[in-house]
């Protein structure tokens, strides 16, 4: 397996346009490009671990990543997903604390790392960047707080349906227009919903019987979106 990587160029980066770095000046971008490092991460590897100190900002060039926490019984809870163009580990960096969660790729992911000092220098000089960060944090807070009320008020069945809709929106579809473009294990799916793996498997086959979805290995195909929305009981 060839693990040699030519670092993706910031200037030609396809995903930069939708990242927080979309409005950097040419000089600032060159500054980032010169100072950054990067690597390919494979499923099973970790990008960072809870309790370690961040040395820089991770920026996803390609691939999807899960950010999760582990309790002392070893059970994992996925707190959010990230994709190309998203940044990782910025919260620990900003608050000057140790990582409070783990990050691992769901599929091969190319990730650039921008040194801490460079990141802070940019934030200080570029007020648009800090505005973008603030907006990003606000969005994340909103989604985390929304999930709290979901967890407390919705049944596992409703949450699973909602998670599938969220995945479809977040990851998009494959060429066929119905298969969700992400390869999650049933366990990952259970760890997003916050339930046992066997419960997820049971409800997935129920959804399949209802003809809401179709299953093909790890892949999930949305057949009847309206049905899923109804099951998810989405009200806002």
């Amino acid at each position: 397996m060839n693990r040699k990587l030519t670092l993706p160029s910031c200037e030609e980066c396809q995903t930069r346009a939708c990242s927080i770095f979309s409005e950097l000046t040419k000089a600032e971008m060159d500054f980032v490009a010169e100072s950054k490092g990067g690597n390919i991460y494979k499923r099973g590897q970790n990008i960072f671990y809870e309790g370690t100190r961040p040395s820089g900002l991770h920026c996803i060039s390609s691939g999807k990543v899960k950010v999760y926490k582990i309790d002392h019984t070893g059970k994992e809870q996925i707190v959010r997903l990230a994709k190309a163009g998203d940044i990782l580990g910025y919260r620990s960096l900003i608050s000057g604390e140790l990582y409070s969660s783990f990050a691992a790729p769901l599929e091969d992911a190319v990730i650039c790392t921008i040194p801490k000092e460079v990141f802070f220098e940019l934030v200080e000089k570029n007020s648009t960047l800090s505005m973008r960060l603030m907006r990003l944090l606000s969005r994340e807070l909103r989604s985390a707080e929304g999930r709290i009320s979901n967890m407390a008020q919705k049944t596992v069945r409703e949450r699973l349906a909602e998670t599938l809709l969220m995945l479809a929106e977040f990851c998009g579809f494959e060429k066929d227009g119905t298969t969700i473009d992400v390869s999650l294990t049933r366990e990952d799916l259970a760890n997003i919903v916050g339930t046992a793996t066997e419960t997820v498997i049971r409800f997935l086959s129920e959804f399949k019987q209802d003809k809401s979805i179709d299953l093909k290995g790890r892949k999930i195909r949305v057949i009847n979106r309206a049905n899923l929305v109804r099951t998810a009981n989405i009200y806002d």
Partner: protein
Amino acid sequence: MNDLKAVKLTKSDLQTPSPENEVAPFPFWESSKEDFLSHFSNGRYIKINKNAYLFRENDPPQGIFCICEGVSKLARTGKNGKEYIIRFAQPGDWLGVSGIYHGTHISDAVAIEPVKSFFVPKDEFIRFLNRNSQFSLNVMKILCDEIEKAENRITALAQKTARERVAEILLNLQQVYGIDNNKYLNILLTRKDLANFVGISNATLSRLMSDFQRKKLIRIKNKKIRLLDLKKLSTLARIAAV
């Protein structure tokens, strides 16, 4: 905003803060409180009565509130009109920041005891933020901290039983609000608020609380709660001992 009454506070109100919030009101700010306030010429102190709203879910934000005294709850109303409490805000907290970047508030903010706060209009807040990168980093830290707390709650809700969550939240409340002279929790919550915070029904909460009393983990007197056995509660909550 209709619930807000801009009240001119007396001098003594502002100059003799009670000891416990002496340091709290303006966190992450290296200059003195007066220096800080002088940056916001349109800012003003306001008093919010018990049970009145600071802002409501989906309202367009008018500005941010820096809590100086009193506790408010941040809550969302879910299906069936059921309320769910996301967190409690205490002196030193800034409320409404994420709303500004979203266009609408994420949740209701309700004073559960009389609240005194410093209100900064939205435009002035953003202007100041743009000019001052250190302040902007400090505000980001506040948001990071709130997200962190929210993610921990998600994990707890997914992985812990109602019993474990009640124990965890009681310990958490003691850590944040401290205890009074008689060792009772320094925050007075209604049963309903506590149940809505744990995410369980009132009946389940009552059952668990009487069970905790029977096991001598807590004592309840006049609605106030005293934690008797922190070690056992920590074990029960499945968190490292406090």
